[in-house]
Every structure is written in structure tokens, then in C-alpha cells.
């Protein structure tokens, strides 16, 4: 099968592409030792124009555990030539000159990864571009869901808290492709699900329900397989008096507590890290319960990103 040349958007992936990735990630996770040399003499550039702890470290781990090296890396613009206004295009050209076989780029601007893929002939992996996309997060989420339930269809999802600014809801573009999936959305009205996603779900004849009333939490949780919370992205609220006032109402308005959880086993609670320690949308009393899946979810970032590198940079079938 032909795997997409670059990983730019979750919307670019068919169910067959994802199945291919998840199968490989499962094999890598089960037998990491078997893949220790698959990236030997291959080099990855990690170009982080904005910081991201987990995306950076998991890609670095993924490459080195496959026997590959890092040709060029920076974790943030500070202390690099980016402070001297070096362009993305020039940085990518240097990454190529240093012998990189692929690029992971994270950038604060929307569309930066698509632009990078245009100006270099190397495969580009989008490690997050502004408010736009974070496809590698979406793919590791799909892996985690599949790992837990053995399927990606006929599942019920509850997405809660910040559905407007959180990039994790982009996963809807993929989950809506599978038959039988149903969706609940619970948030403060100021950070409700954007219309584009509702239109997409309608266009694909998906069943969904939206609520702005936290009293619906128990009902939604009782029906769901996956409860997916997203941190309130306060940095994306308008820096105006009105924006700050809205943020005050949004923060803490939707919080999943242990007392709301149903007495059933087929439920996992997921959340892309980091979690806001001051205003978490999942209360600390859920941390120690078996449903708490977010650390396991983040840990899956390494085998899933190993599989991405194998498929994108080549080497999935060995040297």
C-alpha cells in the first residue's frame, strides 16, 4: 500500500492507512528489540519553532530506539538563528544539507507544516502547527483507543471541556469515517464544537448530541466507551477584557469527577497532556482509577511515532 509521503493532517489518512500504522505500531511495541537497527544511518531533523515537551522527546526517543540519529535539532527558537529571523525555508534547506532523511516540524503558525512540505523534498511530519493540526497526537489517540477496544468502529465518544480551541477534536475527521460511532459533546457554550465539525458529522450521517449542561455528564459517561477531555486553551482566548471575562467562566465549568463515573468497566478517560494543574478538566480523584488512561496514552507516543518514522522515512521492512 502507499503510505502518505508526509504526515500533515489527520484528514489525509484513510482507515486503511491507519490500520497499517496501528498494526506496525503494535508490532513495534510488542517487540521493540526487533526494530533497533531499522533506522541505522538515517537521520531526523527536529525543528521545534515552539516548545513541546512530549512531542519532542517522544520523536527523539522513537528515532534513537530505531537506531537512527538526529541531524539537526532545536527545542525552541531561543538561542538559535531563528532569533536572527532565519526563515523556515532556509532552516529546512540546512536540515537537508546536514543529511536529514525527514523533518519533524512544530510551529506556532497555522499551515506551517504544509508550507514546509512544499519547500523541501524531504518527508515532513507535522508535530503541531498553530491552532490547526496535530496529526501525530490524533494517530496515537487512535492507537490507544484501538489497543483498548480492539476496534475503531461502533464506539461511543464523549468529548468534553474545550472543544473549540483544542486540536484533539480534529480526530473527529477520522473517527467519523467508521460505521456505528456516536458522539457526545459537553462544554461551556463559549468553547463549543465548531460548526465545521458538526457539518462534517452530519455529512457522514453520524449520530451526535451537544450539551452545555454539566448535569448531562453522568448520562453521557454511562453510555460512552471513551471520555476525552481537552485542557482549556487559555492562551488562545482573545487578550481583551471580554476575553478574560469569558475565560473566567469557562475555566472549571466542565470537570469530570470520580463521583460522576458509572460503575462499568468499558470506559477510558483520555486527555492530551499537559493537564492544567490549576484548572484541570479531570479532577485529581480520577487519577488513580483504572479508567485514567492519559499517561498510558502519552506513553504510546513512542511506539506510534516509531511506526510513523518507519513508514514515512522508509525502513518498515528492515535493512
Amino acid at each position, binding site marked *: 500500500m502507499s503510505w502518505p509521503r508526509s504526515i500533515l*493532517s489527520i484528514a489525509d489518512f484513510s482507515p486503511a492507512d491507519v490500520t497499517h500504522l496501528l498494526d506496525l505500531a503494535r508490532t513495534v511495541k510488542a517487540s521493540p528489540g526487533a526494530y533497533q537497527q531499522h533506522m541505522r544511518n538515517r537521520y531526523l531533523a527536529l525543528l521545534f519553532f515552539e516548545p513541546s515537551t512530549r512531542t519532542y522527546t517522544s520523536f527523539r526517543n522513537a528515532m534513537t530506539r530505531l537506531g537512527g540519529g538526529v541531524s539537526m535539532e532545536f527545542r525552541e527558537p531561543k538561542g538559535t538563528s531563528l532569533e536572527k529571523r532565519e*526563515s*523556515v*525555508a532556509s532552516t529546512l534547506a540546512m536540515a537537508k544539507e546536514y543529511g536529514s532523511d525527514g523533518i519533524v516540524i512544530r*510551529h*506556532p*503558525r*497555522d*499551515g*506551517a507544516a*504544509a*508550507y514546509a512540505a*512544499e519547500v523541501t523534498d524531504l518527508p515532513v511530519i507535522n508535530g503541531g*502547527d*498553530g*491552532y*490547526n493540526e496535530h496529526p501525530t497526537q490524533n494517530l496515537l489517540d487512535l492507537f490507544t483507543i484501538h489497543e483498548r477496544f480492539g476496534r475503531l468502529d461502533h464506539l461511543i465518544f464523549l468529548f468534553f471541556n474545550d472543544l473549540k480551541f483544542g486540536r484533539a477534536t480534529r480526530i473527529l475527521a477520522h473517527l467519523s469515517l467508521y460505521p456505528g460511532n456516536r458522539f457526545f459533546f459537553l462544554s461551556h457554550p463559549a468553547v463549543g464544537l465548531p460548526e465545521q465539525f458538526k457539518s462534517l458529522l452530519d455529512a457522514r450521517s453520524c449520530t451526535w448530541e451537544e450539551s452545555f449542561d454539566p448535569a448531562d455528564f453522568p448520562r453521557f459517561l454511562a453510555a460512552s466507551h471513551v471520555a476525552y477531555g481537552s485542557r482549556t486553551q487559555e492562551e488562545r482566548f482573545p487578550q481583551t477584557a471580554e476575553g478574560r471575562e469569558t475565560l473566567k467562566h469557562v475555566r472549571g465549568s466542565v470537570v469530570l469527577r470520580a463521583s460522576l463515573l458509572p460503575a462499568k468497566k468499558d470506559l477510558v478517560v483520555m486527555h492530551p497532556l499537559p493537564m492544567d494543574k490549576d484548572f484541570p478538566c479531570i479532577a485529581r480523584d480520577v487519577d488513580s482509577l483504572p479508567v485514567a488512561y492519559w499517561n498510558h496514552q502519552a506513553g504510546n507516543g513512542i511506539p506510534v511515532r516509531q511506526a510513523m518514522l518507519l513508514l514515512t522515512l522508509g525502513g518498515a521492512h528492515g535493512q
Partner: protein
Amino acid sequence: MDNRKIELIEHGMVFDHLTFATGGRVFDVLSKYAWIDGFYPIMVGSFPSKSKGRKDVAKLDGLHLAEGTGAMNEIALLSPEATVSWIDHGQVLRKKKAWECLAPLVTSRLIECPNANCITHEEAPPTFRVQQRQPLSLECVYCKRSFMR
């Protein structure tokens, strides 16, 4: 340029029903492209319009522009509902709406992506995919934001 008469041309192009006050920018576009192969006179005027109150008209003397190329794309972005006529021997060879002359993918700094956080505001050349021609709807190829012209 108010109410000036625009001379008839034997061979060239007429851009009629331009959105009022875009004539100056259309002149700039035509100047940029029409001077590449020599000098071709460009005339721009502003006239009363029955449907819109005022309209601008531009003429390019001596040169035919191809559809889907630089100048035509930019004029279509500035005034998608304008009427474009190709003139030869003083007769109209063919006539089209500007939006019909637009390439499926357009790169132009004449318009900006409405997403203030888009990479086009920092480095990438503003490039748009035509989603719908009438009314004209564009999508930024980088951030995927859609918007109407």
C-alpha cells in the same frame, strides 16, 4: 478618473463592471503584466452603473491575456463579477465573467488569508484554492481557512 470616456479599441481587452474603486488596483495589475512584452496603453474610468450605482472600467490596448494566468487571476480576485471581453478588429471575440477566468489554484499578494495566525502572514506566499466560483469562495492551501470574496 471620474466619468472619463474610454476610447474604443481595435485589438485588446475590456474589463467592464469592475467593482467601484478597484480600477486603480486593476491598472496596477495590468501595468505589472502588460509591460513585460512591451508597452500597451491601459485606460481606466469610473462610470454610473444601473445595478450597483458606480462601476469601474479598464481597457488594455493591443494585448490579449490568457485565462488562468497571472493578470487574469488577480483581476478576478479583485472583482470576480467583472465582465471580461476580448476584442479583435473592433469586435467582441468572446466575453466571460472574471470568476470564469480564474485558475483553480492562485498565488497572489493582492489578497490576504483572513486567518491572522496563518503562515502566509510570516513567510509562505498567499496561495488559494478556488472552492466555488460564484459567489467566489477560496481556501488557503496552508491553513485550510475558507472565505468568501
